[in-house]
């Protein structure tokens, strides 16, 4: 049984279906069929984690999972479970499980939950699909689907702000999608294949012969990916999208949307152009420069934000560019640092958003200035928040430190010395906007009146909210402490780098 | 000019006349007549086509086409007149309102 599953070629499809089937199923449920809906949700999420576990084991043993379906003559829907894909898939599968639990608690009693959970599942379907896309065509397919499935979640509250946020989100992402489609078609015509291949598929000689043309092609694709990755000039949708409910923010910032963009940049550099061709074209230099600027810019904008979710959003803009920065630098260490930040940023940021959601849900505290003394009322939440925030800053041995360490060393190896001051500046700025939040929560006196929704027994809030917060915070600790083990994210990333880059 | 050439020019003239009338005349019955005149023009042109093969014999194909065309034209005229009556019944006037009137939106 076990070995049969391990060798099952269609395992990637099964992983995608574990969220697609519940998503479609829930759509046909009535609002009051709560138990059935929850069963659908949790069964799908748990099944996905289990199947991904099998795939992880299989890939570690040397299997590669491939599933193809011909859509057009010469174009396939192809799902491939290789090491790089699994990095993203296991992140989203794991975080989906906790986010589902969190969302069930968070949305208790609010309207339109059927619609919410249906699209929630479909959103994760799109994410796992694009994570395992074996070629650009499949990637574009799921990338566009992700836009559509996320939109109803962003506007879920139906408020003015939510509608405006959804509008902004769509204008950005759909334009990006259109650009990406044009780029993808051009790539197909120009290169003759859209398959994701380690080392890239662009012919170095052809790129050398007409660098301007290839740079423009790269630019189109980068613009398409960059919007979701919230790279500097096109990041504007992300801070506005905080109008969405907290589980959706978690999804946007950690599990799905921005990760899809960042992952797209990784694929663009790794699997389409190849980092060497990208390097000679100067394309990776462009990405590195943009990413470096975005890192500092996002941090500066996060300073002085009073709205907690807005602060976290600008922090995401900054942190996400670590990934692009890492993969744009051509040394294995930097590659590892960038890739591993995909996971590290995910678990840290989801913890922070969960905490922000708990504060908003339990005390209706949404601003930093209202947080005076919350640590006494909600010690567990604020502890988790602090762990994740310190991790972001890069306190050893937390995950952020590992990412920055690898990035810095890799950059020095590559002779890109300018990266180190960027990283240092970013860390200082991280500290400058996170530490005041922690200080206010622990040391200040309570200044405003909370609207306390009460405790859940001895717990400080509903257990379905606290359990995800605690588990992701524990993850953060473990991922940092056990970074040296081969099955930690960092260990896995080194496997990817060993297999794909060298 | 041969008789056939005369037919052809007369046909083209009738078609142009009809086309002009259908565009200019507002009254629906005028329009329906104008379309019929366009049709007659086409029929004339068809009948004036030089015969295939033996020039001494009339070409049966255009005649068949014209016969069929007349049947179709009669049917179309009947439908059009019927609908024109309905327009009169609904709006009280045998004209199509200006496009602007139709574009009004609630």
């Amino acid at each position, binding site marked *: 049984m076990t070995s049969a599953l391990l060798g099952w070629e269609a395992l990637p499809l099964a992983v995608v279906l574990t969220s697609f089937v519940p998503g479609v199923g829930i759509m046909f449920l009535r609002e009051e069929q709560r138990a059935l809906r929850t069963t659908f949700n949790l069964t799908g999420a748990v099944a996905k984690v289990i199947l991904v576990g099998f795939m992880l084991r299989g890939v570690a043993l040397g299997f590669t999972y491939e599933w193809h379906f011909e859509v*057009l*003559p010469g174009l396939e829907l192809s799902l491939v479970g290789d090491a790089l894909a699994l990095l993203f898939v296991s992140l989203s599968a794991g975080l989906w499980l906790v986010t589902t639990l969190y969302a069930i608690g968070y949305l208790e009693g609010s309207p339109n939950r059927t619609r919410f959970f249906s699209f929630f599942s479909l959103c994760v379907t799109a994410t796992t699909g694009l994570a395992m896309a074996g070629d650009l065509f499949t990637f574009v397919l799921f990338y566009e689907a992700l836009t559509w499935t996320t939109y109803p979640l962003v506007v879920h509250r139906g408020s003015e702000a939510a509608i405006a946020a959804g509008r902004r989100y769509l204008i950005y992402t759909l334009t990006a999608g259109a650009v990406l489609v044009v780029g993808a*078609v051009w790539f197909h*015509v120009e290169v003759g294949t859209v398959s994701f291949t380690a080392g890239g598929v662009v012919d170095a000689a052809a790129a050398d012969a007409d660098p301007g043309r290839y740079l423009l092609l790269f630019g189109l694709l980068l613009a398409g990916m960059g919007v979701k990755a919230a790279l500097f000039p096109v990041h504007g949708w992300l801070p506005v999208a905080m109008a969405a409910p907290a589980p959706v923010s978690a999804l946007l910032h950690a599990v799905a949307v921005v990760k899809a963009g960042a992952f797209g940049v990784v694929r663009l550099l790794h699997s389409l152009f190849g980092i060497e061709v990208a390097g000679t074209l100067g394309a990776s230099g462009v990405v590195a420069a943009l990413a470096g600027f975005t890192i500092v810019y996002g941090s500066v904008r996060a300073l002085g934000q009073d709205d907690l979710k807005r602060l976290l959003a600008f922090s995401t803009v900054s942190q996400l560019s670590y990934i692009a920065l890492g993969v744009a630098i051509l040394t294995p260490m930097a590659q590892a640092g960038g890739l591993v930040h995909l996971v590290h940023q995910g678990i840290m940021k989801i913890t922070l958003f969960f905490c922000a959601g708990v504060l908003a849900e339990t005390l209706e505290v949404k601003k930093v200035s209202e947080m005076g003394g919350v640590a006494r009322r909600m010690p567990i939440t604020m502890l988790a928040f602090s762990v994740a925030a310190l991790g972001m800053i890069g306190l050893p041995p937390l995950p952020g430190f590992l990412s920055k360490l690898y990035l810095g060393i890799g950059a020095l190896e590559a002779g890109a010395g300018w990266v180190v001051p960027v990283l240092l500046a970013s860390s200082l700025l991280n500290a400058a906007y996170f530490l005041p939040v922690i200080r206010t929560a622990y040391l200040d006196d309570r200044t405003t009146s909370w609207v306390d929704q009460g405790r859940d027994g001895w717990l400080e809030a509903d257990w379905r909210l606290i359990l995800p917060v605690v588990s992701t915070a524990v993850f953060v600790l473990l991922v940092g402490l056990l970074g040296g083990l081969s099955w930690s994210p960092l260990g896995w990333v080194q496997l990817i780098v060993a297999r794909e880059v060298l | 000019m041969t008789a056939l050439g005369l037919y052809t020019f007369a046909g083209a003239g009738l078609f142009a006349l009809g086309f002009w009338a259908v565009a200019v005349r507002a009254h629906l019955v005028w329009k329906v007549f104008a379309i019929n005149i366009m049709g007659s023009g086409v029929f004339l042109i068809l009948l004036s086509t030089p015969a295939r093969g033996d020039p001494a014999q009339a070409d049966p194909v255009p005649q068949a086409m014209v016969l069929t065309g007349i049947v*179709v034209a009669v049917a179309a005229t009947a439908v059009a007149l019927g*609908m024109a009556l309905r327009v009169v019944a609904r709006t009280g006037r045998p004209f199509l309102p200006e*496009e602007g009137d139709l574009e009004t*939106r609630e």
Partner: protein
Amino acid sequence: MTGGDIWSVLLVLAPTLGALVALQGGGWAIRIGLALGAAVSALGSVALWVSVAQEGVLRYALGGWGAPLGIELRIDGFSVAMLAMTALVGGAVSLYSTGYFRDLLPQSSDEVPHGERGARYFAPLWLLLWGALNGVYLSGDLFNLYVTLEVMGLAAAAVVTLAVTSEATVAGMRYLMVSLVGSMLFLLGVALLYANYGVLALESLQAAGPSGGLPVLALALMTVGLAAKTALFPLHGWLPSAHAVAPAPGSAILSALVVKGSFYIVVRLWVDLYGGGSRGGVVFLGVMGGAAVLWGSLMCLRQVSLKRLIAYSTVAQLGYLFVMFPLLFPAGGVANTDAWAGGIYHALSHAVAKSAMFLAAGSMTVAVAKDAIPAISGTAHRLPMSFLAFGLGGLGLAGIPPSGGFIAKWLLLRSAVETGQWLWAVLLAVGGLLTVAYVLMVLRYALERTEPSEGFQPVPRRMEWAALGLALISVLLGTRAVEVIALIQLGGPGG
């Protein structure tokens, strides 16, 4: 022999016979007539698909009288694809209409003005139209095309006037005038071609390779006439009113199928007969199509009435079909097969998606007895299936994956890139975004949480299923295109 000749005759005969049966009135006569038309069309399309796949292009001489004297049928992959599309959409619309014209419609309301007349005459007219459409796709000669086109135009205009309002009567009359003048222009072109070459069969004319003064004049006349019937910008003025005021199943037929009938003939003329005509000609068609895409989409954004919005979207979407021409015949190059596949695939997937949207919109407007877009607020909860159908259909129109529209857009884009016609690539991308904008304008209201006002009418389930079924097929068209593309390429340019 695979019986293709029998089926091609039955494809015209059965719907026409069904029309006669349905004309006898009464629920059962209508149902039997519709069932007859739908069943034969479905089976016939499948049979012809199989035959064409096995034997290539089919030619049948009716009654043993071949060209030049008799009527000859000619069937290639493109014909079969259109026949199958008509059968699919037609079947769903027929099912829907039996629910729509049930006694649920308020007789006195000004908003939904389809009373008894619609119930009585929709089915016969539609079946007649169906037979004529099938006839268009089977015809192998120009004159037969004219006759079937004219029957189609008369029946279609009558469908518009089934609604008893003055608005509908006027729109139907205007449509009829445009349609008749268009037919006359077409017939004049036919006469000129016959005068020049002495043949009517498409294949004989193709072999003659029409060129020179009169044949080009003929092409111009026929194209203008057909463009008016297809509502190509700027001859589209009649369409929004006509398609919007017709009863919902009628709107679906007009927007999805009828305009495709005249478009089909345009394709036959330009692609088969004239082999692309001149580069200037195809670019002109493309520019008109591009203008239609932009103008139609912008007008969509200004609409308040739901059905008018969908009708304007037809104007825009038909534009894409004409954008196919410059892509198909690039400057100095050979015919681009991607453009062919993409353009025809767009025609097919638009038919399915647009009919799903019109049917779903019909269910929603019946439910709230209003046609204004804001009035459908909250219908997402009451009619989730219709809402889903509308949404999925809209995604198909906008070319969002996975949908047939996406495949079509991909192929058209690819042909634009392959032939270096970047301006068209930009137009396709911008057009897609505009489509998204107007589809969302509607979805946003439907998603709103406000409960619908009182007077919410229940809708028969089969109406919702018909719309949803079409919407799902428009999505499925995006997941598997191999077989259909292979069919379209059979006998197509460059194939």
